[in-house]
C-alpha cells in the first residue's frame, strides 16, 4: 500500500552544523536518489524530507531546523518514536557518462545519495559543485571529495573554496570540460540559474524541486504546478528538462498551506 508506515525509534542523530542534523533509522527503505519520505512526529504533524542514504538495514535524512515541526524534531532524542512512510516520487534517472552535479545549501542530500549510486554504476566522470552561504553551511564536503572525481566548493562569503555561487563555478567548469548530463538540487532561484546555464550549453538536466506537500501521494493537489497540472510529489520531485520547460511556475510561483498561489 502507498501509505504503509514504519514506526521507528530515532537510531542516531549527527550534528552537521548549527542548524542541520542527520537522523538515522534502522529499517528497510528501498529508495533511489531524489526520492523522499513523509515523516510524522506524533501530535505534531508530518513533513517531507529527501532521503540522504539507504543501506540494507538503515536510512537517513539531513534536516534543517527552520520552523515548528523541525524545532520539535530537534528537541527529540535517540530512541524517540516517529513514523515514516515512503519512499515517494520519481528519482534521478542515472546516466553513466560525464556527469556534473550542481548543489546549493541544504538541498544537497539527494546529490550525496546520487553520487554514491553513480559510483556503484561505474560512472565515467563525476564532478560535483557544492555551494552554500559560508563554510559552516556546507554539507558532506569530505563525502563528495571521496565520491567524486572532482569536487568544487563555492561559498557566498568566500570562507571556503570559490567566492560566489555554485552556478558561477558551473559556468567555469563548463568552459573547460565536456559533460553528458547535469543534475541540479538547490534553492529554486539557484536551480533556475543553473538550468539557464545548462540550456546555454545544450546539456540535458534534471532538477530537484520542492513544493508544499500535504499528502505526498497525488491526491490533495497542494504540490501541483501550473499550467500542466504536474503533480510534483508523484511525478517529481526530480523533473527532467522537457517537463520543466512547460512548468511556468518554476522559479516564479508556488502554493502555500491553503493552496493559495503566491510569487516565489
Amino acid at each position: 500500500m502507498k501509505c504503509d508506515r514504519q514506526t521507528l525509534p530515532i537510531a542516531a542523530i549527527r550534528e552537521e552544523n548549527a542548524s542541520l542534523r542527520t537522523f538515522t533509522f534502522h529499517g528497510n527503505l528501498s529508495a533511489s536518489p531524489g526520492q523522499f519520505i513523509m515523516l510524522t512526529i506524533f501530535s505534531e504533524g508530518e513533513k517531507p524530507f529527501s532521503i540522504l542514504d539507504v543501506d540494507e538495514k538503515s536510512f537517513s535524512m539531513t534536516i534543517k531546523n527552520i520552523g515548528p515541526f523541525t524545532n520539535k524534531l530537534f528537541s527529540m532524542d535517540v530512541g524517540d518514536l516517529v513514523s515514516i512512510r515512503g519512499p515517494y516520487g520519481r528519482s534521478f534517472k542515472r546516466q553513466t557518462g560525464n556527469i556534473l552535479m550542481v548543489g546549493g545549501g541544504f538541498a544537497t542530500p539527494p546529490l550525496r545519495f546520487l553520487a554514491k549510486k553513480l559510483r556503484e554504476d561505474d560512472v565515467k566522470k563525476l564532478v560535483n559543485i557544492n555551494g552554500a552561504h559560508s563554510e559552516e553551511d556546507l554539507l558532506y564536503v569530505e563525502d563528495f571529495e571521496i565520491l567524486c572525481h572532482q569536487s568544487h566548493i563555492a561559498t557566498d562569503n568566500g570562507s571556503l573554496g570559490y567566492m560566489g555561487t555554485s552556478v558561477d563555478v558551473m559556468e567555469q567548469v563548463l568552459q573547460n570540460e565536456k559533460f553528458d548530463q547535469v543534475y541540479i538540487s538547490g534553492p529554486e532561484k539557484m536551480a533556475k540559474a543553473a538550468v539557464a546555464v545548462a540550456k546555454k550549453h545544450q546539456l540535458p538536466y534534471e532538477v530537484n524541486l520542492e513544493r508544499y506537500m500535504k499528502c505526498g501521494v497525488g491526491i490533495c493537489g497542494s504540490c501541483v504546478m501550473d499550467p500542466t497540472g504536474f503533480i510534483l510529489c508523484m511525478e517529481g520531485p526530480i523533473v527532467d528538462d522537457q517537463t520543466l520547460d512547460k512548468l511556468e511556475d518554476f522559479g516564479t510561483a508556488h502554493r502555500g498551506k491553503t493552496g493559495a498561489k503566491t510569487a516565489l
Partner: protein
Amino acid sequence: MRFLGKDISTPLTLASGILGISFSSLQRVIRDGAGMVTTKSLSIQPRIGHEGPVIAEFTGGLINSVGLTNPGIAEGLEEVEKFRSGIDGVVIVSVFGANAQEFVQLAKAVNDSSADILELNLSCPNVEDEFKRPFALMPEKITEIVSAVKAVSSIPILAKLSPNANDISAIAKLTQAAGADGLTMINTLGHGMVIDAVAKRPVLRNNFGGISGPCIKPLALKLIHDAYKVVDIPILGTGGVSTGLDAIEMMMAGASAIGVGSAVYDHGLDVFNSIRGEMEEFMDNHGYANYSELIGILEEN
C-alpha cells in the same frame, strides 16, 4: 448525454477534494477522460485545514482528515476562470459555509463566475470539532440552506449528502423539496480511525477521518437506490467507484453521473480512461447503446 442541462461526453466526474485546487489539475483531469470536474470545497476565507498526516490506508479504503483546506472562494473562482481558457468541460464548484448566510454569499459569488453547477457540501465529516454535526444529518438545516441558496442561484444546485444519514429517503425528498436540482451521494463516511499499534496512536493527526474508497461502494449503492426511488432530480453517484463495472452498477442503482475520488489515489489519473473503456466494453457486450439506458434500471429481487 446531458447532466443538469449540460452536455457531457462521459458521466465520469472528478469528485470534490481530489487534486481540485488549481485550474491546471482540473484541466488535466478533463484531458485524462472526465466529463465534469468538481473543485475542492471552497469557503469564504482561506482554510489551512488539519495538520498531517491527513490520509491513512486500510483494507478496502482510505480515511482522510484534510479538513477543507482551500484558498478561499475568491482565489478558487479565479482558478475556475483560468480553467475556461483552452478546454471544454463542465465545472462544478463545491462550496462550504458555516451557516445559511455564508452559503448564500458563496452561491452568489459562484453565480457571478463562469461555473456551470454549484455543489453544496453539507456533509463533510472532518470539521465537526469546528462546525458540529454535518448539516446533511439535520433536516431543518438542509431545508434552510438549500432553499436560501435556491433563491439566489440561477445555476443548478447539487446538494451533497452524507452516508451517515439514518433515513436517506426522507432526506432526499426534503432536499428536493427545498429546491435542489440534483443530489451528490455520497460524501465520506464518518468516522474512521486507523491505529498505529507500535506508537499507540491514531495515524491521523486529527485522530479520525472520513472513509472513502471501494469499501463504501455497497453503502453508496444502497443509499443512491433508496434516493432514486423517491426523487425526480438526477444523482451524481459517488463512493468507491474504481472500475467500469462499479460505475455501471451505480448508474443502474440510479446515478445519472459518477464521481470518482479515491480511485485516483489507487490507480492515478489514468483511472478515468480505464473506467470509461470498461464501461463501453460492458455496454457493448450487453447491448446498451447509451449511458442513459443504464440509469435506475436495477430491479429489486
